[in-house]
């Protein structure tokens, strides 16, 4: 495995403080290696987005990071904790080291500015010495990279289709050649056809440019196909982490198994769909012990009382008492 580029250590995120607060991310540790695609899956509300925003300090109020470290190792230079950066440093860090592609491209683009403006904006902020013409040239280059004709430079977001907008966002994310690209459900709003096109393009670009990707979705089958490693989240914790193929073939955590069993497969023999009984937990009234135990078909004694810790088993790890056995 290559060296880590981003290490999340014991990250905790709350929404609000005091009695009303919700503990959305609980002690999450996760390592992203250089050049890999790390998938992050889980049901709605499991904290995937919160984690993604949290590590870049982009959580909207009343989100508060209540502990942990996010160690970033630049391509050359010493590692540093992103959470300790001053505002100024943080602004410099953003986009040039880590870029984010959000779920809704329509909402991610400012409706009143041309896409060229929004592309060159970044360059103006991060590379102030760059000349106007070279900024434009670079923006045009990025558009070409994601397969959009340069003559769409002066279009406004509403003049582009959903797929094109999403591609503009990807192009924008890569414009500063960041080390890490975080993608929060970048394709859920799109058609399967479009989804495949865009993801295919992204993977190809990753191979060319060598950045790492954190890929968030709740579509596990998509992740299995596109990522190197997968982390499964449940109730604000990582419950399992493993290489994609290993997870697909033989997941350790019952939750992962349930998730995999919820997807009807298009190809191959018709499998029995198991699904997961019950409904996702409420963060305000988290069950004691393993938060999955009320829904877990394999729950047993310790599950209800003791919180399982994520422990490594070779190149994979899981937080489940079953596995501890």
């Amino acid at each position, binding site marked *: 495995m290559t060296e880590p580029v981003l290490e999340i250590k014991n990250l905790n995120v709350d929404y609000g403080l005091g009695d009303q607060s919700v503990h959305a991310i609980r002690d999450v540790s996760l390592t992203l290696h250089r050049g890999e695609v790390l998938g992050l899956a889980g049901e709605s509300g499991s904290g995937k987005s919160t984690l993604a925003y949290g590590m870049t300090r982009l959580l909207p109020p009343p989100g508060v990071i209540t502990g942990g470290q996010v160690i970033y190792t630049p391509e050359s230079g010493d590692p540093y904790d992103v959470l300790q950066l001053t505002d100024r440093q943080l602004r410099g860090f953003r986009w040039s080291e880590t870029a984010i592609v959000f779920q809704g491209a329509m909402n991610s683009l400012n409706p009143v500015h041309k896409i060229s403006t929004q592309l060159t904006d970044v360059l103006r902020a991060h590379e102030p010495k760059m000349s106007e013409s070279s900024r434009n040239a670079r923006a045009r280059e990025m558009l070409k990279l994601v397969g959009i004709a340069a003559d769409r430079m002066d279009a406004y977001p509403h003049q582009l289709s959903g797929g094109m907008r999403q591609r503009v966002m990807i192009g924008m994310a890569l414009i500063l050649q960041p080390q890490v690209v975080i993608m929060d459900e970048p394709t859920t709003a799109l058609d*399967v056809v479009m989804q495949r096109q865009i993801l295919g393009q992204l993977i190809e670009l990753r191979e060319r440019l060598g950045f790492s990707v954190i890929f968030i979705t709740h579509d596990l089958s998509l992740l299995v196909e596109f990522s190197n490693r997968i982390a499964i989240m449940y109730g604000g914790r990582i419950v399992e982490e493993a290489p994609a193929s290993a997870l697909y073939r033989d997941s350790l955590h019952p939750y992962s198994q349930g998730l995999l069993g919820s997807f009807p497969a*298009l*190809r191959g023999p018709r499998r029995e769909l198991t699904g997961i009984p019950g409904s996702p937990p409420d963060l305000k009234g988290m069950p004691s012990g393993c938060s999955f135990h009320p829904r877990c078909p394999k729950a047993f004694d310790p599950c209800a009382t003791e919180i399982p810790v994520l422990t490594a088993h070779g190149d994979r790890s899981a937080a489940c008492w079953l596995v501890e056995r």
Partner: protein
Amino acid sequence: MTSIPDAKAPAGEVVLEAVGLTKHFPVRRRLKDVFSRTHKAVHAVDDVHLTLRRGQVVALVGESGSGKSTVARLLAQLYPRTGGDIRLHGETTKVTSGSSFRRYAARVQMIFQDPFASLNPTHTIRYHLTRPLKIHGTAGDDLEKSLHELLERVSLTPPERYLDKFPHELSGGQRQRVAIARALGARPEALLADEPVSMLDVSIRLGVLNLLRDLKERLDLAILYITHDIASARYFADETMVMYAGRMVEGGDSETVTQAPAHPYTQLLIESAPDPDRLAGAADVADEDRGNGEPPSLINPPTGCRFHPRCPKAMARCSTDEPVRLEIGDVPGHWAACWLYDKNEVAK
């Protein structure tokens, strides 16, 4: 050249039938259009044939904007149709409002995509369920009993726990169950489910789909299941129809359509679906040329086959002649609207 107007009827009585159903939404005329004669329209649905049978699920699959919801709303008679026919038990029906509409609604009910939006936030579950019961004839002492029955039927037990709650107090899956219960309250014969699970979480989708299947079996309902997830159609529907840009392009037994797609569009759709068995990185983006395929404009739809601008196998005639339904040899009832399967072409 064999053209079959209808798939061969499998077992089950026909409940609802769409024949050549067409819907064009007029485009708002602009000032400069005042002098031109042409009336522009969105060709949302064109010449759709569909048969719902008792105890069967028909899936309608297609990308966003292909006209799936419009078909459902037309069938529910929420929109007046531009052309074609809707037959309920073989009888042509055209209702817009009043008691005839209510009689129709008692037999054909619809479930909406978004369980968050389809329940009125200001009313309790009790109100939501009482209304169809009252409108469609259950009143008096039976009411409470019927309410309980409804909730039990959708597995919201015990009913008392749910009756006086407001929609926001329920989870997504529970809400969709309430929506289903409301539709059942009218004791319909046909249920039109417009993407009933696409807004739900993966882990609870299955529950709702299983419920629908269960209802189909127990109440002998005819169900139209609209989805953009072709994989779920394979698992859930007996028959699958694929729509593209307002037209049906392929139909047949679900397993056949998903495993041996005939129409290039269906093939593309299935190829694009995530496949965990493909390995990471190995995902090759084979058909770059297919890449920029954007769905066509429905105001000026492409001539001939509407898919031809994106079709890798397009032939000259595809851009001029509108394809008709052609039977595919493999399985009975499997058809595609594609010139590739015209005997003359095959012969070539």
